[in-house]
C-alpha cells in the first residue's frame, strides 16, 4: 500500500520546520506540500485512491481555502480508513479546539511548534 504525506500550510517556514522534523524522526515517504486548501483539494480530487494511505498535516488559517473549508469539501469522498488528518495550528484559541471536535475525520489537534516525540508517535501510528 502506497503511503503519502501531505503538508497543507501557507507558511513556508512552518512547512520547512515540519519537514525538518519529519526528517529527524526518519520518515522516509515523499512529502507533498500545498500552500492552501484549494490546491490540496484539487490534487486529492484527481489523485485520491481508496487503496492508498494518506497522512495529512493541515493548517487552519490559509488564504484561498482555509482548513475548515478544506475539511468540509473532502468529507464527501475521503474516508478515515485510509486518511489520517492532523490539525496543526499556531492558534491556541479554545474555539478552534472546540470546532475541531466536530470533525470526526480529524485524528488529533496539534499546536505548533510540533515536537519530535509527537511526530514519533504519528510515525508509528501510521507506519511511516
Amino acid at each position, binding site marked *: 500500500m502506497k503511503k503519502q504525506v501531505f503538508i497543507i500550510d501557507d507558511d513556508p517556514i*512552518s512547512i520547512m*520546520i515540519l519537514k525538518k*522534523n519529519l526528517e*529527524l524522526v526518519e520518515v522516509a515517504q515523499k512529502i507533498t506540500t500545498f500552500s492552501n486548501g484549494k490546491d490540496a483539494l484539487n490534487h486529492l480530487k484527481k489523485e485520491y485512491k481508496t487503496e492508498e494511505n494518506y497522512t495529512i498535516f493541515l493548517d487552519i488559517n490559509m488564504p484561498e481555502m482555509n482548513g475548515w473549508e478544506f475539511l468540509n469539501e473532502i468529507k464527501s469522498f475521503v474516508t478515515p480508513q485510509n486518511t489520517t488528518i492532523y490539525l496543526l495550528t*499556531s492558534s491556541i484559541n479554545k474555539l478552534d479546539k472546540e470546532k475541531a471536535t466536530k470533525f470526526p475525520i480529524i485524528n488529533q489537534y496539534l499546536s*505548533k*511548534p510540533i515536537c519530535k516525540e509527537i511526530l514519533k508517535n504519528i510515525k508509528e501510528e501510521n507506519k511511516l
Partner: protein
Amino acid sequence: MIVDEKKYSIIVVEDNLGDFFLLEEYVSEKIKNPSVKHFERFSELNAFKEDVENYDIIFLDLSLPDKSGTELVEEVLKIAKNIPVVVLTGYTDFSFALKAIALGASDYLLKDELNSITLYKSIVYNIERFKNIIKIKESEQLYTDLFQLSPQPIFVIDAETFQILDVNQACEKLYEFKKEELLNNSIKTIFRDEESIFDNHETIITQTHQKKNKEKIITEVKYNKIIHNNKEAIIIVSNDITKSIEHLKEIENQNEKLKDIAWIQSHIVRAPLTNITGLLKIINETNAVTDNELLNYLNQSVLELENSINEIVEKTHKS
C-alpha cells in the same frame, strides 16, 4: 358653669376700647386665666409680628385707624400664617365679613350678637379646625415639592386631549422647554415619534422624545392614571437613558475590538512565534549553533515572549 382650664393665648386687634373690654370679659367667663394681647392699631400688631406664632388665635376688628378693609385683612393674614384670624364686624359691614372669609379669614363674629358662648365656641372651633388646615397645607406642600423637586422629569397631561397640564423642574431641564412653553400644548410636541402613546399604562416602555433644540433622546417612560382638578389625567414619568444606551454601545464596540485583538493574538502574532520556537527546537536538537550561551539566551527570550502572548490570549478569552 364649666370653665376651660387649658392655656389660651389670644390677640385682639380692636381700637374701640369698649368692644375690647366686652370681648375680654366674655373670654374670661369661659376660659380660666387667658393670656390676652391687645393692639389698637395694625402698626402695633405689625411690630409684634415675630411673636404672633406663639398665640393661638387673632380677633381682628375690620376698621382700624391706620388700616382697614381688604388691605387690612390681607396684611394680617400674611402675619398670621399659622394661626386662625377671626374678623369682628357690625351689621353695617356684614357683606365685607364674607369677603374676609374668601380672602382667607377663618371665621367672622357679629359684635352685636357676641356673647361668651358664641365667642368660646368660635375660639375652640377655629383653633382646632386650623390645625387640620395646616396639616392639609403641609401635605399639599409636600406633594408639590415631591412633584416639583423630583429629579425625574414628570408630565401631567389631560387624558382626553393629551394637553400638558403640569411639568416639573426636571422636565424643563431635560427637554429644555420653559414650563410656559409646554403648558396647554400637546404632549406630541415632545413625543413626536411616538404613534400610540397611551396604550401601556403602568408598564415601562422605551420611547424616543424630542427636545426643544430638536435633539432626540431615548427615555424609559411610565404612565399612570390620576385625577387632576377633577378630571382624568395621565402622569408620565420619563427617565433619560440616552447616555446609558450610548455607553452600552461603546462597551459592545470595545468588546468587538477586544475579540479582534484576541484573534490577532492567537493567530497572527503566534504564527511567527511558533515558527521561531520550531526553528529553535531543531537548532537545539541538531547542534546547528555551537555557542551555547547565545542559544540559551535565545531560548529564554522566546520562552518569555511565548508566555506573555499566552497570558494575553487567556485574558481576552476570559472576558
